[in-house]
C-alpha cells in the first residue's frame, strides 16, 4: 500500500513556517508600537502633557534633527521604559522580520532538499547584506 506523503505538496512546510514567522513578527511589532505610543503620551515628556499642544506638534514634526539611534541609547531607554525606546524596538522588529524571513526560508528549502532554491534564497540574502553595507557607508 502506498503511504500518504506527510507534508502534502512541496514547499508547503516553507509556507507554513514563513506564515507563522510573519504573524508573530507583526503581532510583536504592533504590541511594542502601541505600548510605546501610549507610554509616550502618558509620561508628560517629549509629546507634551494631556495630548500635547500645537507647539509640541510643530517641534516634533519639523525638527530636522536626526534621531538618536545608538544601541546603548535603546538599551538605556528600554530599561527606563521610555515610550520612544519601546517604539524604536517595535520598528526594529518590523524591519528585521522580512530579513529573518529570507534566512528562515533558506533553512526550510534546505530541509526539503530543494538545492536550486537554497542557492536562490542565499543569493537574495547576500544581495540584501551587500546593499545594506553599501547604503550604510554611502
Amino acid at each position: 500500500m502506498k503511504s500518504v506523503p506527510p507534508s502534502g505538496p512541496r514547499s508547503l512546510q516553507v509556507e507554513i513556517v514563513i506564515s507563522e514567522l510573519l504573524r508573530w513578527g507583526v503581532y510583536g511589532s504592533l504590541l511594542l508600537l502601541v505600548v510605546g505610543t501610549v507610554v509616550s503620551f502618558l509620561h508628560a515628556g517629549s509629546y507634551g502633557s494631556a495630548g500635547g499642544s500645537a507647539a509640541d506638534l510643530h517641534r516634533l514634526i519639523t525638527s530636522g534633527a536626526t534621531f538618536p539611534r545608538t544601541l546603548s541609547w535603546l538599551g538605556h531607554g528600554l530599561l527606563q521604559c521610555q515610550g520612544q525606546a519601546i517604539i524604536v524596538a517595535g520598528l526594529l522588529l518590523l524591519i528585521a522580520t522580512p530579513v529573518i524571513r529570507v534566512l528562515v526560508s533558506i533553512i526550510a528549502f534546505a530541509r526539503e532538499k530543494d538545492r536550486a532554491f537554497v542557492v536562490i534564497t542565499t543569493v537574495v540574502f547576500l544581495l540584501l547584506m551587500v546593499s545594506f553595507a553599501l547604503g550604510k557607508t554611502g
Partner: protein
Amino acid sequence: MTPLFFTLLVAAISLSAGVLGSLVGVGGGIIVVPALSLLLGVDIRHAIAASIISVIATSSGAASAYVRERITNIRLAMLLEIATAAGALTGACLAAYISGRWLFILFGMILSYTSWSMLQKKKTAAAVLPPDPMADSLRLHGSYYDRALGQEVTYRVARTKLGLAVSYVAGTVSGLLGIGGGVLKVPVMNLAMGIPIKVCTATSNFMIGVTAATSAAVYFMRGDVQPFVAAPVAVGVLLGAKLGSRLLGRLPNHVIRLAFVAVLLLSATQMLWKGLR
C-alpha cells in the same frame, strides 16, 4: 492640531493606505508621503523614511495570510527577488550619475501606457502561453483557492526570463527614484507571464517588504526614522494590510485590476509632476 490628534489622523490615513497597498501589491508610499509632507507639513526626510516603514508594514501585515492561503507564489517571489535586489544595487550606484528628472518623465509615461494595457486585458480571454522550460525546471507553476470564484485556480508561469529582466529594471528604477517596484512587477507578471492578478499582487506584496527592509535599515542608521511619525504610520498600515488581506480572496478579479490601475495612474501622475515641475 495636537500631537494626539496628529497620531490618530496619521493612523487613520495609514490604515487606508495599508488596505489599498495590500490589495494591489504596492507599498503605501504614494499615499503616505504626500499625506505627511504636503498635508501635515512633516519634514520630507521623516516622511520618506516613514513611507519605507509603511512598505514593510504593508508586506508583512498581509503576507502572512496570503502565504498561508497559498495566493503568494513564494518560489517565484524568491527568484524575482534576486533580479530586484541586483537592480536596486545598480540603481543606487547609478543614482550619482543620472538625472532623476528625465527618468521621472520616462517612467511616468511608461506607467500611463501600462495602466492602459492593464485595462485592455479585462476584455481579452486567456491567451495561449508559450512553454517555458525554466519555469518547469524550477517548478514555478502553482494553484490557489479563489474564494470569489469558489474554486481552485491552477495556473502556469511563462516568460520567466522576461519577468527577471523587468524585475531587474524595476529594482534599478526603485533604487534611482526611490519608488517601490510593485507598479512594474505586477503588470509584467500579469500581462507577460500569464499569472492571475491576485497571485501577482500577493507575490509582489511579498517581495516589496524584502527590498524595503534594507533601505529602511539604512534610513534608520542615518537617524531619519522619527518614532513619533513612524509609529502611527506602522500601526495604521499593519492593521490596514491585515484587513486588506482578508478582502483579497473574496473580491472579484476585475475589482483588484481596477484598483491597481487607479494606483498606477496616481503613481504616473506623481512621477510626471516630479519630472515636469
